[in-house]
Every structure is written in structure tokens, then in C-alpha cells.
């Protein structure tokens, strides 16, 4: 029997001289110089987590304590404090839609996007993408270009514009619970009103076949484990191979692919549940 192994219970403190000496030396790391706290961390410790307050056009002032945004003062303050801040926008939208308050999700998007203009370009791009996923475009009251913040009045001029009325109607209606207020009315009240009347009757939505036509090798998206064309989570069996074939590296049959029901677009972004495909017109099949 291995004497070394039998004399030492794995996980215990070392009971030999060399091990104990080394652990004692390691423990000296704990008494090194104290942390030099950065200004950013110091402000967290002194003032707590910032809370966003955004005024959208002439609508109500919206407080968003659930997301990490800088305190809104004037445009200059926003620019100073928002630099480098990443807002968990997607999570906010998803959480709120799951809670069944679809209109609040749109309101939150409006408010966040009102601040997003002062964030780095990459963050703005993320917001625009997320907004697009729920079928809206964000701009100011006159255009879809970009929201503006007026330094004098300390207000954000944010306009919500329907990107595709039928698509937007389908997404928001899917998320809204029975009896919830009409999302379009909420958006209209809080913004320029440009989306009023944009919600179509769902019965009028175009329908189509699911995107399950076989690819060049005869495998469908579902078999490959791919999501829809816009989604993430690809990485299943390469085109031209089925999961039950032996891979070139010797992977046995049945291995290496994304399991059925996985790999689709994350839920909540465009409403497509993972692993499901879309019909033309944005209807979830």
C-alpha cells in the first residue's frame, strides 16, 4: 500500500514538516499590504449603488432601482458617471416580462435607452439590439436616430417607434398576462405617441411554415441543435452530419450534438423559447 497516501487523509491539514512549513509561508500572504481602494469602489462604499431616475418626454419620472445605472443629474453628470457602466438590460426586460408586466418592460427599455446614449458605443448597440428584439426602435421624439438628453431641463427626450407593428404586437402580447393593461397604451402615454395604434389584431398576423426544411445534407435545424437564424446557441452537429454518425475524431454515435430542445434563442429576447423554431411573421410555433 502506498504509505504516503495511507498516512494522510486527503483534505486534512498537512501533517508533515515540509507541508506544514509551506502552508505557514502561504498564510503570510494574508498579512500583506492593505487594498488600495479605487475611486469607483470607494463611491460604492460611500454612497451605495446608484439609482437611475429618468424623465421621458412629458411623462412620469421613472425610477429604476433594479438596474445598475448612474444617478441622473444633468447631461454632464450622466456622461461622467455612466462611462464604462454596463447595464444588465436584457435581464431587466426578461425579469419584468416574466413577472407579467410587459408594459413595464417597454417602459424600462425606454428609460434605459434614454440613458444609453451616453454609454459606450458597444453598450448602445446592445440596447438597440434588445429593443429591436421586442419590436421597437428608440430615438428622440422626431426620429429613430438616438435619444437626446437636454442638459438645461435635465430631461431625456426619448421616442419609441414601432419597428414592425405586427411583430411587436406578437411579442408583447405573448408576454402580457391576462388582464394586463394594453402595452401600446402604456408606451404611448410615456413617449411621443408614435406607436399608438400600431398594435395589430393578432388574428391578422401572417402565418407560415416553421423553418424546418432540411439543409443541404438533409438535417433540419432541430436535428442540428441550431437555434433560429437570429439566435445564439449554435454548435450542434455540423451541417452535413447527423448525430447518429461517427464523427471524424471518433466521437461515438449520439454524442457531440446539442440535445433536443436546447440551443435556441434565449427566452425573453425575441420570445422564441429555446429549441423552438419560428414561423414566418414571428409567430412561435
Amino acid at each position, binding site marked *: 500500500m502506498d504509505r*504516503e*497516501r495511507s498516512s*494522510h487523509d*486527503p*483534505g486534512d491539514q*498537512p501533517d*508533515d514538516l*515540509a*507541508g506544514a*512549513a*509551506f*502552508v505557514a*509561508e*502561504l*498564510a*503570510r*500572504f*494574508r*498579512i*500583506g*499590504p*492593505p*487594498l*488600495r*481602494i*479605487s475611486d*469607483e*469602489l470607494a463611491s*460604492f*462604499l*460611500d*454612497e*451605495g*449603488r*446608484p*439609482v437611475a431616475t429618468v424623465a421621458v418626454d412629458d411623462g412620469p419620472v421613472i425610477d429604476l*432601482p*433594479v438596474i*445598475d445605472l448612474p444617478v441622473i443629474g444633468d447631461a454632464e453628470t450622466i456622461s461622467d458617471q455612466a462611462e464604462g457602466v*454596463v447595464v*444588465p438590460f436584457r*435581464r431587466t426586460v426578461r425579469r419584468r416580462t416574466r413577472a407579467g408586466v410587459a408594459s413595464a418592460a417597454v417602459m424600462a427599455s425606454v428609460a434605459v435607452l434614454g440613458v444609453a446614449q451616453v454609454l459606450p458605443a458597444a453598450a448602445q448597440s446592445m440596447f438597440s439590439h434588445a429593443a429591436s428584439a421586442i419590436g421597437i426602435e428608440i430615438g428622440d421624439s422626431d426620429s429613430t436616430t438616438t435619444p437626446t438628453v437636454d442638459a438645461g431641463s435635465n430631461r431625456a427626450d426619448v421616442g419609441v417607434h414601432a419597428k414592425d407593428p405586427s411583430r411587436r404586437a406578437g411579442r408583447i402580447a405573448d408576454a402580457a398576462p391576462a388582464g394586463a393593461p394594453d402595452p401600446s397604451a402604456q408606451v404611448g402615454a410615456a413617449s411621443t405617441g408614435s406607436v399608438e395604434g400600431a398594435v395589430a389584431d393578432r388574428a391578422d398576423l401572417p402565418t407560415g411554415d416553421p423553418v424546418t426544411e432540411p439543409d443541404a445534407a438533409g438535417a433540419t435545424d432541430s436535428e442540428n441543435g441550431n437555434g433560429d437564424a437570429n439566435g445564439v446557441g449554435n454548435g450542434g452537429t455540423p451541417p452535413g452530419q447527423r448525430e447518429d454518425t461517427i464523427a471524424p475524431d471518433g466521437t461515438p454515435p449520439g454524442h457531440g450534438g446539442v440535445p433536443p430542445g436546447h440551443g435556441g434563442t434565449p427566452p425573453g429576447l425575441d420570445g422564441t423559447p429555446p429549441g423552438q423554431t419560428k414561423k414566418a411573421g414571428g409567430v412561435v410555433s
Partner: protein
Amino acid sequence: MATPILCDEEFVVVLGAAQDGKSWAFERLFHLVAQPILSYVRAQGSPDPDALTNETLLRAFRAIASFSGDVDGFRAWTFTIARCRLIDERRSRARRPRTESLTDDAGVARLVPRGGDVEVEAFASFGDDWVRDTLDALAPDQRDVLLLRFVADLSIDQTASVLGKTPGAVKALQHRGIATIRRTSAVETVSS
């Protein structure tokens, strides 16, 4: 600095307040994990342990709303963030051309600050070198386990959570790490 202890009941209150954005709660959490994280990243050889610790804490505080769990879970969570940042930092460093400073100040962090008794400094320096050499001789997994266990003072379960391994695997890695140290020390003793 001794790490302050929060009981689970107290931690629930502190966590709730932090999730509401209260500054005093962030301060309590800061004192709970800041120094252990700093010690850990310093022991891992980070060229700028202060910056990495600051960044780890900021990430944790910004994402505090998404955390749920007890005080042990919180410690494991923050160390997971720290370890991920360490890995990012190493990858980033590997992509950049390596530069060496001509002064000792910019070298790998010393265990204890210099200044004062020459004899004490000499012994400390010898200890530093031995620890560094010994750590370098360990496999990365073993080094991770030993530093999380004996520098960060995490339990077997917390270490397993940070590394994404089972507690049994952590125990085995610790055992093998100590065995490696024992062998290394024996060889050094014989050769000297």
C-alpha cells in the same frame, strides 16, 4: 487583518440591504471578502492585485441583485469572479509583449512589505523565493486548491464551488499538492 465573521442571519440582512443599494451593506460585504481576495490574487502572481481586487468587488456589487445564498456561498461567488478575472488577465498578458521593469518595485508582489530590519528582510526574501518556486512546481489545479484553501481560507466545499469540482476532487488535489511539496523539499534538502 482578520476577516470579519457574519452569521447567516446577519448576512441575510446585509445582503438584502446591499441589494437595495445601501452603502453600509456594501461596506460590510467589502470587509468580508476584500482582504482575502487581495491575498489570493497576490499569491497567484497578479501584476496588479489591487486593480484586480477592485474590479472583482465592483463586478460583485453591481451584480449583487442576482446573488442568492448564504455567507459561504457569497464568499465562493466572489472568489469565482476573482478567479475568472485572473484568467482573463493572464490571457490578456499572454497576448501582449512582455516587459520587465528594471526596478524591484514592479516585480512579483512580495509577501510582506520591505523596509526595516535587514535580517528580517533577508529571511522574508528567502521565504518568498521558496514559496514562489514551490508554487511554480505545482500543477495549476493543485496551486489553485492550495491557495484557495490556505490563503483565501475557503473550506473544501467553497473551494469546490469556485473551481467547479467535486469536494472529493479538491481533497485529492490538495493531497497531491502537499505530496509534491514534500517531494520537492526532500530533493532540495538532498541536493543542498
